[in-house]
């Protein structure tokens, strides 16, 4: 009976998992407030905040003007002064407008004040391509991983979205929570009981023996699709869903890559100074010179044009091709 209730789950869309995480967190902790463009009655660009305005009212769920710099700045200041704001920046491209308060203040506040000020803020933003073009498609997770003092998480499933967001909302922060346009309408099982996913732990999504694939967010699904096809050819892929990009669970990757002897890193953003380059360096330090390859976007902006978007960002086919080449070397 006990084990049954522990493992009981409910099927939720990714967007519902986010709303649930926020709702449960806000009930538990009245310091949590939500700031976002159309985050209130409208319920967010992807309905990911649906129901929150009704439950918590306009004081705790606040629509903001289109002013990303101030949105992040206000959230950071409020965090420094004792609240736990969740600030929603609709698209990751616009996070650029709010980098000053996030990077120059929040990520450095604890350090520069010798521990007097912490900034338990969560900035949630949506990355990735889905028909919206050059300024609404970018993935700049790699930049954010390079900011000391900032944590970055990027779930691929509703359960992780819920569990990681809840952890982020109890973290000493700052935390950047990155989701993806193509994930909101995906569904998955989420534990019925309130549950947290710790920041900093990767998860092996699929076990395999020939090659280790690392991915996060929507690219985890691309990796899984590729792995299914490759399985038909007798290629066995182990897929590691990074989940947390900073801090990164390098040990889990190293264990896997050490076993399979081949590593493919997959990311939707640019390869240059990207997540794959970082993982490759660290795995090489830990595991030695194994076969490695990386897959990411072409070095080009992402067009809203469906043909060009598809050509630019990684597809399962490209992953399959890269793995074949990697294993034939």
């Amino acid at each position: 009976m006990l084990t049954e209730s522990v493992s009981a789950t409910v099927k939720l869309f990714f967007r519902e998992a986010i709303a649930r995480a926020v709702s449960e967190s806000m009930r538990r902790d009245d310091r949590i407030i939500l700031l976002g463009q159309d985050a209130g009655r409208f319920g967010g660009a992807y309905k990911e905040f649906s129901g929150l305005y009704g439950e918590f009212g306009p004081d705790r769920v606040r629509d903001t003007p289109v002013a990303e710099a101030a949105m992040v700045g206000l959230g950071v200041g409020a965090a420094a002064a004792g609240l736990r704001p969740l600030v929603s920046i609709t698209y990751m491209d616009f996070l650029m407008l709010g980098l000053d308060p996030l990077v120059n203040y929040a990520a450095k506040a604890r350090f520069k004040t010798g521990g007097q000020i912490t900034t338990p803020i969560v900035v949630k933003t949506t990355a990735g391509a889905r028909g919206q073009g050059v300024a609404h498609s970018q993935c700049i997770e790699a930049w954010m991983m390079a900011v000391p003092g900032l944590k970055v998480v990027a779930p691929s499933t509703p359960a992780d979205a819920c569990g990681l967001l809840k952890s982020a909302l109890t973290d000493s922060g700052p935390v950047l929570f990155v989701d993806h346009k193509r994930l909101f309408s995906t569904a998955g099982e989420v534990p019925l009981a309130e549950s947290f996913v710790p920041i900093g732990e990767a998860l092996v999504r699929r076990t395999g023996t020939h090659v280790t694939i690392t991915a996060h967010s929507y690219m985890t699904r691309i990796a899984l699709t590729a792995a299914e096809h490759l399985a038909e050819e007798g290629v066995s892929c182990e897929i590691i869903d990074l989940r947390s990009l900073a801090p990164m669970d390098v040990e889990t990757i190293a264990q896997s890559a050490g076993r399979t002897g081949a590593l493919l890193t997959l990311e939707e953003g640019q390869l240059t100074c990207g997540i794959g380059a970082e993982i490759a360096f660290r795995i090489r330090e830990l595991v030695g010179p194994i076969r490695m390859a990386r897959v990411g976007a072409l070095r080009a902006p992402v067009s809203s044009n469906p043909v060009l978007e598809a050509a630019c960002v990684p597809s399962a086919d490209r992953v399959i091709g890269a793995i074949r080449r990697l294993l034939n070397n």
Partner: protein
Amino acid sequence: MDRLALLRRMMLIRSFESALAKRRDHGFQLLSSGAEGVAVGLCDALRNEDQLLCSGRSIAPSLARGLDPGAVMAELLGRIAGPNRGKAGRGHMAQPAAGFFGAHAVVGGNLAIAAGVALALQQRRSTAISVCVFGDGACGSGALHETLNIAALWKLPLLLVCDNNQIAIATPREQALAAARLSDLAAPFGIAAVTVDGTDVISVRDSATGLIANIRAGQGPGFLECISERFFSHSTATRETRSAAEMEVVWSRCPILRLTGQLRAEGVLASGAMEELQHDTDRQVLHAIAFAEASPFPNSAEALSHVD
């Protein structure tokens, strides 16, 4: 343009958008219906050598500026015959050679760009001006403040036009902006600023003309706020949040009906003329669609062209 031509241009935009909205093969679009008077009135006050910039809501501005409807349709449908070779779509359509410097889908993002265009014109001693159309939502962004200040200091030949349709996605303008009138935001900088009814194409044209005369005379930037309407939801993929009662008021303020009514009352518009105009513009739109559909999608190799 005479008033009939203005009417025809507004009807073309409306008809273009109706046809486009019926399609399902373009992701989504940001329609200008309800705000045709702003774009058409404004563009009538411009000269060929002027440059127009706008937000991602680019259909009315591009068509009002005189871009070929077929080319615009091609761009919106992602076809290579678009001015941007189908790479930009609604959010970044541009044809600088035709005086349409282009759309930019970052809210507020085109303000400083437009000021830069004005700076280039000023530096080259041109008599042309730079004009930027942006929404009420963009008025919350710091970019407006920085741009107003520098444009005023440097007396840039820049006309800022706020197409205030009183809402940003689902956020009513009063809830997002503390200013009583958005043109008040220009006042501290000593910038000439006017608020007009954006559903009155003639007022828009005349106010723009007045402000532009000062700008061309070297007196520095101007600010024109046009109170317009958004007849549909934010985009063809977004849910509407306004009540039916609200929408009744919104729809009652149609720039096309308004001008039609005036022209009828003055006897300028003969009884069958409207039907004829409608027929003409609908046919123009059909041609535009046919042109666009005859054009292929770009080849996937284009994904790597024009990057550097």
